[in-house]
């Protein structure tokens, strides 16, 4: 179980990375390699070039603004878990990071890599959807800012072109009155989530947001919720309406995950 032969390049700048990607359409970006590595070893992915972006200093930077924190794409889950970056969501990011896979994966797996891979069962996708974060993308024509819901088109499908690089994620800050809950249902600790529930209630910002993640495509945002206290009862109907009714088990575990996230937020 060994990868096919590929070339390797290690640009020091975002521009250098984009140039390499432009030149080789089948190049793949290597960050922590925690998703790409297995696919390479299994020969499911057979790129001719890996562009290692972990030596680009800018990509691990943090930019804090009054109403947001922008996290560089190569910041690892472990850096978030350990509190080595500011948490705009007042602990939610840390909570989520702590539950991603295993420590030895979190030390190398990156936020940007997880988002760019767009696996529906990935934690950050659901979490950032609930927080209405914005993806920052650099390409040969400059930078663009894409709301996360538009960024992910479907399972393993994003709006990234082959010569573009996800450079950061901009996450709005929650207010001091915010409360949140996060719950995922997995067959085994650290493995792919079968269902994810996120609940964010921030009276300071006037938002109540519920997300059902690890569906078969994009996370489902449960809209029209005004009070978290009253939310649990209508979840099943909302997820049915969102198209989760095809499989009773799938529906039921997603309802349970969202309800548990709500309960978590209410208990906070």
């Amino acid at each position, binding site marked *: 179980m*060994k*990868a096919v*032969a*590929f070339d*390797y390049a*290690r*640009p020091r*700048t975002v521009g250098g990375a*984009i*140039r390499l990607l432009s030149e080789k359409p089948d190049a*793949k970006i*290597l960050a*922590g*390699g*925690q998703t*790409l*590595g297995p*696919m*390479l*070893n299994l*020969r*499911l*992915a057979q*790129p001719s070039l890996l562009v*290692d972006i*972990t*030596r680009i*200093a800018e990509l*691990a930077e943090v930019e804090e603004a009054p109403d947001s924190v922008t996290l*560089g794409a*190569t910041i690892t889950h472990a850096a978030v878990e*350990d509190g080595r970056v500011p948490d705009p969501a007042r602990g939610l990011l840390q909570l989520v990071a702590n539950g991603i896979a*295993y*420590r*030895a994966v979190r*030390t*190398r797996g990156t936020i940007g890599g997880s988002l760019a*891979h*767009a*696996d529906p069962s990935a934690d950050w996708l659901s979490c950032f959807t609930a927080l209405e974060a914005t993806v920052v993308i*650099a*390409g*040969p*024509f400059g930078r*663009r*800012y894409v709301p996360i819901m538009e960024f992910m088109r*479907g*399972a*393993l*499908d994003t709006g990234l*072109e082959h010569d573009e690089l996800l450079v950061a994620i901009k996450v709005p800050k929650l207010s001091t009155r915010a409360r949140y809950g996060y719950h995922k249902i997995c067959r085994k*600790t*650290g493995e*792919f989530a*079968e269902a994810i529930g996120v609940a964010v209630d921030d009276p300071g910002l006037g938002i109540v947001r519920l997300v059902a993640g690890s*569906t*078969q495509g*994009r996370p489902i945002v449960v809209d029209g919720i005004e009070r978290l206290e009253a939310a649990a009862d209508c979840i099943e109907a909302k997820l049915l309406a969102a198209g989760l009714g*095809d*499989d009773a088990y799938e529906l039921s575990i997603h309802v349970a995950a969202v309800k548990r996230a709500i309960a978590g937020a209410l208990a906070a």
Partner: protein
Amino acid sequence: MTRISLSVNGRPTSADVAPRTHLADFLREQLLLTGTHLGCEHGICGACTVEIDGEIARSCITYAVACDGARVRTIEGFDDDPMMTRLRQAFTQEHALQCGYCTPGMLIAARDLLRRKGGLGRNEIRIEMSGNLCRCTGYTGIINAIGAVMAETGVRQHAPASKSGWRGPAPGPEAGTCDAAELKGPPHAYQDAPAQTRPLSAASTRRPIKVTVGRLETIEGRTSLTQSFVLPYQRDAVWRILSNPVEVAGCMPGMVLDGPPLDGRATGRMEVRLGPIVASFAGEGTYERFDEDHRQVIEGKGSDRRSGSRASGRVEYQLLSTTLDGAGATEVQTRISYVLTGPLAQFSRSGLVRDLVARIGEMFAEAVDARLSGKHGPSARTTHLSAFRLMLRIITARILARFRSFQKKISH
């Protein structure tokens, strides 16, 4: 081969490595440090756990070339480490190992846990250790051993592994490297330009078409589903496109024909992509046209040399006249069936993708619509994606179907 320099167990080391050589193979085959074991080579089992710049990592999915400039520590480098010495005693005392294969990775993960945390309960230790599989012990002795050492060390402050403050995967930009792989491209090749200057892609010029998707069924290993959509054109106009194999191929995701079809046969390939996965099924197809019914049957099969996988499929569609917003329109009813075998089929990942079946149909429908309206077809990239997805969707559906299949009981 790429030259790297790194420190392994405190010793400076330089070596030529193939970029595809993962760190574990480099340690085992080139440095003969065979204490690092390979259990799965896809990042699940934890047997290959080593430290890179003080943080634990999977050496099977970390490439040696990416460790240029890093400090790597393997089980052989912990011989005299006081914490590891204590852990070894506890592992023996609590019978925390049997065959010994998972043990080096288990010990390194356990020591890292003790470095980072203290005062944990048994369940918390279990969760922290969940990245390391042991097939022999049932974990009892392992949890006992770690608990025993943790009880002695007490509640610890989290000791940072690295003083550099680097927040990305180790070793980061400050590492001293051989830099053979360094790309010294001129930074001015890239400048921040205002957003939205990229030319609009074809995808964004398409108009959305609603596609209705029926249930998936798997019979005799063939998975089939139905789709239908309505195009706002007269049936004859649509049939001109959909009766022409070259046009159909043009609208089919990732399809490239070698040349014009002859006698109802064509050869070509279908390239499909899913994230980093690319498969190219080369093969041949036949088509059979029934003009009076406005119906066509296309069958094809091919194999992907890269993965050794094979696929065969059948698409049958029929055009029915209907109306849309009071105007004449055409409903395209499609029945698709697939078989996939080989490595690409051999996954039971159930994260697949109800809404995508509709999106695939949408892509095809939009491509046909674009042809009829004289616009560009969809970009190859997006269609590639959707086609592969369809395949994966089929795989998953088969698994789901299997879950439903047993549960039969006879009872008095």
